[in-house]
């Protein structure tokens, strides 16, 4: 890696952070030094409390992603292939889409309580919309010729959907999942911040109330790393799943 002016800027800012806290330029309990933040993070990881919370958050995120993603793909397929369903339910979907996610948490708490079912549902709801939109666009962009060819060969509608349309729409669907993945992590943390005592989000708020700034910043550093790693991992997975698409010389959107 080449050291550019940008790398120097980051190093400079981090050094400034460390120095301002160590030398008392910013004298505030809310402004711990970078080294203290990293030490607090390491200590939390060592006790096993934070790893357990991360696993819980990731499990809720994964479950919500799977449920919402599946629902999104199926609804998208239905909307695209059976125009009547889009006409009947399109309006309801469009009315629900712009509701900011945190706002659906209080009513869901009434129905599902504070624990896993509520949080998984919130994540699933968030994931549903981008996956639905991308599936719909992906299916509509499938070359009519390939569908017509399937029909010519006498392939039934269900098998056409599964073996011709779905694979052809896969790049678009995966792009939707990539957007959804980032949102899913954020929303998992948001749900945990607002309700219940589980996971990373609740830990973050707990540390805020306890006035333990180093731990709080440590969790944020961890979340950023987690988000980055998840995105990287997903892109790698995407490259494997739709290698044929990239082989055709196209670039990631």
């Amino acid at each position, binding site marked *: 890696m080449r050291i550019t002016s940008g790398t120097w800027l980051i190093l400079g800012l981090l050094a400034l952070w460390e120095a301002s806290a160590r030398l008392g330029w910013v004298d505030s309990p809310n402004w711990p030094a970078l080294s203290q933040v990293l030490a607090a993070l390491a200590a939390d990881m060592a006790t096993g409390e934070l790893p357990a919370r991360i696993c819980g958050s990731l499990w809720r995120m994964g479950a919500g992603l799977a449920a919402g993603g599946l629902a999104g793909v199926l609804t998208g397929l239905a909307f695209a292939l059976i125009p009547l369903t889009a006409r009947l339910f399109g309006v309801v979907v469009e009315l629900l889409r712009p509701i*900011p996610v945190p706002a659906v948490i209080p009513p869901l708490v009434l129905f599902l309580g504070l624990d896993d079912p509520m949080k998984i549902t919130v994540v699933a709801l968030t994931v549903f919309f981008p996956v639905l939109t991308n599936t719909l666009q992906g299916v509509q962009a499938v070359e009519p010729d390939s569908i017509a060819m399937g029909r010519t060969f006498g392939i039934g509608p269900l098998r056409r959907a599964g073996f011709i349309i779905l694979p052809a729409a896969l790049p678009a669907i995966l792009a939707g999942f990539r957007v959804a993945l980032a949102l899913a992590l*954020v929303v998992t943390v948001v749900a945990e911040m607002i309700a219940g005592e589980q996971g990373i989000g609740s830990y973050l708020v707990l540390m805020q109330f306890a006035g333990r700034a180093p731990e709080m910043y440590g969790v944020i550093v961890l*979340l950023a790393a987690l988000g*980055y790693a998840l995105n990287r991992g997903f892109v790698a997975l995407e490259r494997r799943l739709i290698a044929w698409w990239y082989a055709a010389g196209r670039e990631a959107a």
Partner: protein
Amino acid sequence: MRVDRLLAPLSGLVVLAALLLGLEWAVEAGLIRRALMPAPSTIALRLWDLLASGDAMAPMMQTLRLVFTGFAIGSAIGIAAGLAMGWWPSVFRLLEPLVELVRPIPKSALVPPLMLFLGIGFAMKVTSVALVVTFPVLVNTLQGVRGVDRVMLDAARTHGWPARHTLLHLVLPAALPLVLAGMRISLGLAMVLAVLSEMLAGEGGLGFLILDMQRSFRVRDMYAWLVILAVLGLALNWLFILAERRALHWQRR
């Protein structure tokens, strides 16, 4: 075609009405506990009370002001930084690593530390909204500036346009479709962060009211405020799309 376009949402509205009626019936028949989901008609009455008495006005304005201010600040920063990074390679080299470092931080996780520094007032909420708005706008602006036709840039240079003129009258308009697409994504995120920061700060606004009503078991009020928030989200989204179409009227496909 004309009639068809009118009929499509109409059948959707019929389905919506049917769903509401079904819900009303299910509540009346005792299939759904009234404490969790009051009959839609009673929610509508409560909604009417809130609107007619003018009680809905102040929280609505509070949330709208937050969304607008944060959205404007975040968009301005995103566009300015994106333009500068796309135009001057030295600025790109300086800022790109920093942007890539800050971008994966879930902005919702930044609300607790922001509360430590800025308290629970307007400053904290506006900062968190502006933060989440900045990055999608920045990334899209950058992409838009990079996608400007080289031939046009050469033509501008041939005509002896000064850099400022080229930026304002060539680069910015050419990048506008992508800039606006980024802003559209950011508008939804701005609503999310506005509601979340209101919930965590507990100092008024629609987000706070929804959570507060749930916690004090005033379920009908909770749903009424939720409907107001949803309509607001829908209206903002719709207004933005209208404005976007108007701004891009030359881009008819």
